């Protein structure tokens, strides 16, 4: 028995090191990609920052859809809440410190997540999807009507963030915004890696696979999902706030059904249930969209559609998911 326990401790430590290594590699890859983007596309930093903001939305969607199995087409409501939260704080309340704006966005997103969660989790399957669509439409309509606060269909302007820590002004080339975004993404990524591996994260994965079993363990399915929805809202809200800070406007499109649906497409493209899939899906989709729409402004949507069909048919687990499954198969053969 002592021997058994001993060998187990060793394997656990080894395991842990392997996972930390994998996380470090993840962080490193993000940093390298960030640097490559910075130096290869110095005139496109605004697009890259937008990709980061959307990546936060897709990560957030992955938390509820990929990890918990909740179907939603209304996730942009959370992103929009963060964007309007940060934007309104700056334009109406003079809260122009970017960190404070970010904090407001995160809180607004988390609250929107709580509210959406309470509504969406009342149903399952298709009715759940319909509820989520209703939420994003209602949010969109509310933002449109409350034009005194949101600028309505003209968008919310007059957002002038201060320098970050009083040191780095937001410049015309978008360098500061880009670095701000990368740091934000890294922090979010590291925190989320922790959460999805924690006991709470296991519980969420359990709920996706068999909620009856989770209840038979004495755990609360609804309570756990609501918590995850709030966390997801905070992450999406951070993305929205980043978008408001970097573009200095907030439009109704940040709260749209289209945006919700595209986020889901990006997630499926990259692969659900792994944070890497969300990142890869967002980057591939937005990069592809940018390249194709420049090359062929008339048929780019057709081409994007064809790509999606190809991925769903030939790599149903998404780009990252299929790649990971392939590696695992090879690893097993090699063993």
């Amino acid at each position, binding site marked *: 028995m002592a021997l058994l326990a001993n060998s187990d401790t060793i394997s*656990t430590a080894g395991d842990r090191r392997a996972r930390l290594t994998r996380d470090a590699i993840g962080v490193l890859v993000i940093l390298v990609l960030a640097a490559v983007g910075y130096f290869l596309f110095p005139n496109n930093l605004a697009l890259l920052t937008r990709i980061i903001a959307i990546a936060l939305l897709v990560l957030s969607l992955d938390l509820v859809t990929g990890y918990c199995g909740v179907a939603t087409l209304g996730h942009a409501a959370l992103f929009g809440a963060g964007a309007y939260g940060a934007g309104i704080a700056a334009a109406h309340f003079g809260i122009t410190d970017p960190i404070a704006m970010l904090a407001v966005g995160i809180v607004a997103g988390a609250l929107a997540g709580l509210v959406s969660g309470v509504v969406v989790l009342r149903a399952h399957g298709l009715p759940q999807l319909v509820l989520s669509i209703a939420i994003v439409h209602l949010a969109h309509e509310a933002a449109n009507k409350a034009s005194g606060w949101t600028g309505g269909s003209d968008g919310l302007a007059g957002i002038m963030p201060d320098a970050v820590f009083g040191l780095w002004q937001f410049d015309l080339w978008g360098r500061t915004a880009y670095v701000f975004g990368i740091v934000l993404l890294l922090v979010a990524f590291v925190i989320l890696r922790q959460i999805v591996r924690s006991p709470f994260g296991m519980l969420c994965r359990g709920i996706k696979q*068999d909620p009856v079993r989770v209840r*038979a363990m004495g*755990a609360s399915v609804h309570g756990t999902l609501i918590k995850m929805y709030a966390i997801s809202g905070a992450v999406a809200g951070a993305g929205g706030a980043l978008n408001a800070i970097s573009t200095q406007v907030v439009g109704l499109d940040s709260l749209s059904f289209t945006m919700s649906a595209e986020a889901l497409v990006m997630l499926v493209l990259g692969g659900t249930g792994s944070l890497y899939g969300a990142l890869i899906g967002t980057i591939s989709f937005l990069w592809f969209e940018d390249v194709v729409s420049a090359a062929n402004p008339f048929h780019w949507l057709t081409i994007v559609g064809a790509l999606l069909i190809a991925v769903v048919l030939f790599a149903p687990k998404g780009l990252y998911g299929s790649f990971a499954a392939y590696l695992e198969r090879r690893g097993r053969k090699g063993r």
Partner: protein
Amino acid sequence: MSAIFDVRNLKKMFGGLAVTNDVSLSMAPGDRVALIGPNGAGKTTFVNLVTGNILPNSGTVTLGGEDVTRLGPTERVRRGLVRSFQVTRLFSEMTPEEHVALAILQREGRSGKMFASHRAMPDVMNEAQALLAKLGIAQLAHHRVSEIAYGQQRLLELALALALKPKVLLLDEPAAGVPQSDTARIEQAIADLPSDLAVLMIEHDMDLVFRFARRVIVLAAGEIIFDGSPDAVTKDARVRQAYLGSYADARSVA
């Protein structure tokens, strides 16, 4: 001794048919009860009703003196009423170690932790490892459930129930689907349970029933037709009647 678990006049209709009809039974701490009956007698339905997985048409369930009839499954588990499933319910993408660790963490109210890993908790890991070893599946601790044989999944199903350290344990055919070579492990694990625990086991294998039970309850067509000692059950005329034709069949099911 006072009852820890008490069911009164439980009734469930499925489309006009009473699958459980006025079932009453009560158990005291330390009871070892076998619930037997022909296929389709309503045994699993009874467990589902008692645990709150389905709602009864009428009747009450009392746990340690508290009426839990209106509570959901989660709340009943937290009060110490734990069941295992006849058809294994596990998380196919998770490992046995994760399953058992999650059950232990849940029992201790630590399953909501977000910035910790069960692997960094030696107490949880050691307990999980010991439980898996006891059921003979320690070597599979790090395999995904979808990759392990059904018989071994059955052992994990039992491990989960045990990890929750219940006060009342309902086992729905724990040995069904387990290879003959491993049933001894199940028997041993059940025999080693704390003596103040009340255990009700549904089982078709009569040899197992006679080794385990100090009291046997026979359910047929949704009604309790016998409640007494193992010695008396084989001699009871109504039991023989109920099993007529299906008894030989029942023996071979396990």
